[in-house]
């Protein structure tokens, strides 16, 4: 099993001196790393550090054996897709949102937007293609969360960093999302998942699970 990602002795302090994050871990092919801990323990902070949106005070991160400083942030973030705790959609239709990464100046190399792929992801998470022309700002919280997830999947990352992806969903939709992630993980080589979740059922859905307690 190939080691995909590793982070060693990451630390992070904020101005408030009663909080200190410290974390190490690794992630191999097809593995799921479940990050657990009480509210305020630093789960989101860790994910933001792994997405390089927040700089760690100390420590190092490696992707496929290479230290993060050697990898351009745009490439890093595209291959290691981060989804924030609050789902983010942009002005325009759902369709515009799904195409967005492909309309950037520096759109993903060797990947084109695939409508078939988008439709099959939509179906897998219980949404119909009728939602495509809808204005993204009118989506419900749970719909926005699923659209944001699909948008990231279409970029074809190797690692997904998901911050409570089922927080806005009912149990059956949550189950659909977890099932989609489960098939996504094994559909191709060199894929892995980091997930923050307070729900036992979410984690139980995966096969090779490692835990990181903060």
């Amino acid at each position, binding site marked *: 099993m190939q080691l995909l990602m590793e982070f060693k002795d990451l630390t992070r302090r904020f101005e408030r001196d009663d909080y200190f994050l410290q974390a190490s871990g690794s992630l191999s092919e097809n593995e799921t790393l479940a990050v657990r801990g009480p509210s305020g323990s630093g789960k989101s902070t860790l994910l933001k550090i792994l997405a*390089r*949106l927040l*700089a760690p005070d100390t420590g190092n991160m490696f992707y496929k054996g290479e230290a993060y400083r050697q990898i351009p942030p745009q490439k890093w*973030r*595209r291959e290691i897709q981060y989804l924030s705790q609050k789902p983010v959609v942009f002005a325009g239709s759902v369709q515009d949102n799904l195409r967005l*990464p492909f309309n950037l100046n*520096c759109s993903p190399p060797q990947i084109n937007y695939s409508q078939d792929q988008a439709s099959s992801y939509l179906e897998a998470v219980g949404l119909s293609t009728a939602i495509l022309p809808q204005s993204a700002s009118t989506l419900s919280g749970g719909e926005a969360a699923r659209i944001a997830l699909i948008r990231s999947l279409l970029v074809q990352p190797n690692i997904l960093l998901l911050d409570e992806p089922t927080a806005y969903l009912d149990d059956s939709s949550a189950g659909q999302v977890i099932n989609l992630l489960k098939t996504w993980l094994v559909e191709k080589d060199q894929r892995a998942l980091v997930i923050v979740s307070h729900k036992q059922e979410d984690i139980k859905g995966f096969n090779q699970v490692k835990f990181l307690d903060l």
Partner: protein
Amino acid sequence: MDYSYIQISNTQLIFSVILVLITGGIATLLKLGLLKSLLWGTIRAFLQLTIIGYALTFIFAVNKLYIIIPILLLQCYIAARESTRRIHKAPDNPMLLSFLALTASTFIVGLIVVMLIISPQPLYSAQVMIPIFGMILGNSMNGIALSLDRMLAEINGHIDQVEQLLCLGASPWEAIKTDMQTAVKAGMTPTINALMVVGLVSLPGMMTGQILAGMNPHSAVRYQFVVMVMMTAAVAIGCLLMVGLYYKKIFTDDMAIVEQMRKN
């Protein structure tokens, strides 16, 4: 020179004290606590304007580039400080960039107006350059202050969106493009709106001055039109430069939003 305009004599000037007394009366009547500021403001305005009067008389008489240019640069510096004064907690210090943006916009537009449109003899006439550059500068300064303020507020309110765009592969510029558009627009809107109503509500100060000084209204209107479009252009260039130079300071070397942006 033609002194056809009506001069204000010293005695006549003293009558303007009546106006100060009226303001003071209102301030006292309503217990506004403004009396001290009013007094101090009146004295300062009188002294500052008197000194400027003497300084300008001297500068116009000498009329040398080695005096004109440093004065214009000093004005740019003061305007740069003023345009960034209200902005706290901004990443890096935007003062220097504001100075660059103001100087560039003022000189580009100022030179076009002075050299091509007004073209006095000799070309570098302090009497033309100093007031024209000053008017441009005042507007650019307000535009830049508005843009900068708006840019920081927009990005601060959209941090999640900006970060998600970065994650989807956007460059820093792409990630904040809509916020930058809003910011530049906020800076430019007042001068563009001014184009719409000029002359309808009140006559602009410069035109009023020229008419009082005896200029025929047709000529005064031409000047005013040039001044209006020059201000719009200067504000556009100033805001664009400011925002375009400053946006890089919002990001770290790692293309992430700098820590300070989260603290506002």
